[in-house]
């Protein structure tokens, strides 16, 4: 148990250090990134980047990857704007439910056919983008009644209504993943799939839940951001896959599956939104943000890889020592 807690703490240590370091660097070089304003702008990264990263992280924990999140967010944005006449909450619920349904379908296909999730989601990435263009008639959709989205722009100190929504989703999904049977199954199929199957974890359910959650998170993110902005363009959010994956992995979600928590995702999102807030305050281009995101992503993956390899080497050495100590196996 103590080892488990130590292991858990270690997985948060690196992202916390990175977050503190980025925060100090950005705050000391950027006048506008101080105090309440800085916390507010970092929290504002949660509704879009954060939710997408959360959904992606769940698929990574399950040992899969959902490449269609950007297209899903764009489609949900258009759907939310088009259905805004039913009210803010109604539009968001419709968009999120659609995302969950499409995601569940993807998960079902992946589990039933044993198909590689990359293959299917490359296809749906293209398909959903096309559907988004069709749904929006190839042009940006505008909100007709701007008062619908007013509650989203409300600010409460360091929070806004949209960042509160995102944080609530983080909390609920965190509890779901950590304490429910359905949530633990996702860790099981990501950590050791064959062993999980042998131990009775169903083939279909965890995969459906994983992709439904990833679809729903991406859809809610797209819906929130588009309603807040008052319009949804069909070509939106193509870069979200990069940023979302970078945030999830920066926070310490393991690319090898089965490891990481919602808190890891939150830390990664905080780092990445601090970086982009800092770069934006300095008037840098979006392309520089991409460059920095890419560089951060490759370094964090390289660090995790090196750490894992060193750990594995130590384990092999330990096992070799144990094998020598044991008597030879008796044939049954």
């Amino acid at each position: 148990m103590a080892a488990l807690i130590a292991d858990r703490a270690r997985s948060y240590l690196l992202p916390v250090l990175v977050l503190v370091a980025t925060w100090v660097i950005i705050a000391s070089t950027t006048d506008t990134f101080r105090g309440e304003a800085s916390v507010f702008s970092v929290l504002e990264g949660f509704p879009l980047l954060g939710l997408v990263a959360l959904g992606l992280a769940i698929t990574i924990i399950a040992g899969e990857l959902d490449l269609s999140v950007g297209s899903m967010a764009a489609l949900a944005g258009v759907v939310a704007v088009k259905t805004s006449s039913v009210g803010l909450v109604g539009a968001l619920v419709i968009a999120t439910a659609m995302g969950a349904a499409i995601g569940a379908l993807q998960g079902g296909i992946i589990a039933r056919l044993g198909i590689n999730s990359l293959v299917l989601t490359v296809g749906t990435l293209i398909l959903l983008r096309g559907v988004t263009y069709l749904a929006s008639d190839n042009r940006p959709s505008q909100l007709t009644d701007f008062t619908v989205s007013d509650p989203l722009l409300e600010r409460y100190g360091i929070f806004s209504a949209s960042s509160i929504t995102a944080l609530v989703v983080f909390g609920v999904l965190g509890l779901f993943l950590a304490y429910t049977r359905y949530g633990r199954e996702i860790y099981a199929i990501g950590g050791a799939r064959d062993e999980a199957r042998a131990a009775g974890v169903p083939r279909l359910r965890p995969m459906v839940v994983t992709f439904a959650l990833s679809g729903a998170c991406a859809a809610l993110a797209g819906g929130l951001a588009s309603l807040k902005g008052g319009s949804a363009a069909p070509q939106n959010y193509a870069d979200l896959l990069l940023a979302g994956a970078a945030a999830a992995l920066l926070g310490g979600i393991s690319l090898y599956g089965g490891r990481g928590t919602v808190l890891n995702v939150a830390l990664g999102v905080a780092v990445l939104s601090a970086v982009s807030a800092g770069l934006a305050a300095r008037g840098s281009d979006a392309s520089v943000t991409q460059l920095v995101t890419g560089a951060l992503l490759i370094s964090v993956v390289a660090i995790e890889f090196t750490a894992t390899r060193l750990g594995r080497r130590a384990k092999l050495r330990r096992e070799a020592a144990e094998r020598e100590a044991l008597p030879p196996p008796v044939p049954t």
Partner: protein
Amino acid sequence: MTEVPATPAAPSAGGARAPAGRSEWLPTALVFAVLVAGVVVAVAVTPNFLTVDNIRAILRNASIVGIVAVAMTPITLSGNFISLGTQQSAMAGCVVFVALVGSGWAPVFAIAVVLAALIAVGVAQGVVVAAGLNPVITTLAAGAIIFGVVADATNGGIVRVGAHPVSWGNSTIAGVPLEVLIFALFTVAVGLFMTRSVAGRRMTLAGSNKETAEVSGISFRAVTVGAFVIFSIGLAIAGVLTGAGFGQATIQSLGTLTIDALAAILVGGTAIVGGYGSPWRSAGGAVLIAVIANVMVLNDFSTGGRLAVQGAVVVVVVILLEILRRRGEVR
């Protein structure tokens, strides 16, 4: 406690391999059957489809995507999935080529520089991936870095050849556009390399069964780096041909290349988990997608309609092939 049998870490995603024979040629036949069916439908619904000009237009559209899809196939076959940084590298090649030619370089030297630069970038990614890092994430990150660097260097503006247009940019040889000819030659070259050379067979074996390949003394690193070199050559050709043809380039050039090339590979039926597939099929996939796009343009479909149909074709083909593969396993 029930004893859980220790499963070997073999790639279970591919499952047991079907015996050679029917399962070998069936997917290829399927791709070409779908292609022929697509052409028949196209002729039926589109009056201007079967004209020399239109066929030439289709092949021109297919060539750039086809070259890149064929070039990416060794990466996929060798078990390194796909590259999500395709557009960025080809675009960088295009921008560098146009910028060099525009500042008075002879195209030959510009091509050499582009080729060397892209191979260097490709080898770097290949080494990282061969070390065991996830290829999808690595190429996604590398693409973002390349995009950022090029955007910074060009200030997001247009680069032009200006007073030094490339004379062979839009040339045809015996009525065949240059890029179509290069697409055909490149496909034959990569196809023969993968099926007839020891290095190519090793790539396929490494993708089909990494453990066996390593036991038989095949270096996964050499195979992966080799696949990335072929990929980089294809990207350089695509970038140079695009730059020479248009005479200008921006960071938005070749904008849909990554998606189109992946769609071509998937529709061609190359399994992303490695081992199955061939450059021929990727080339067929590229032509098929170009045919679909062309028919839809001639019938006044919008961007969205084209993307939706392209995506739907990819999803349906991928699911069908997976079902066929599973059937093959059962028998």
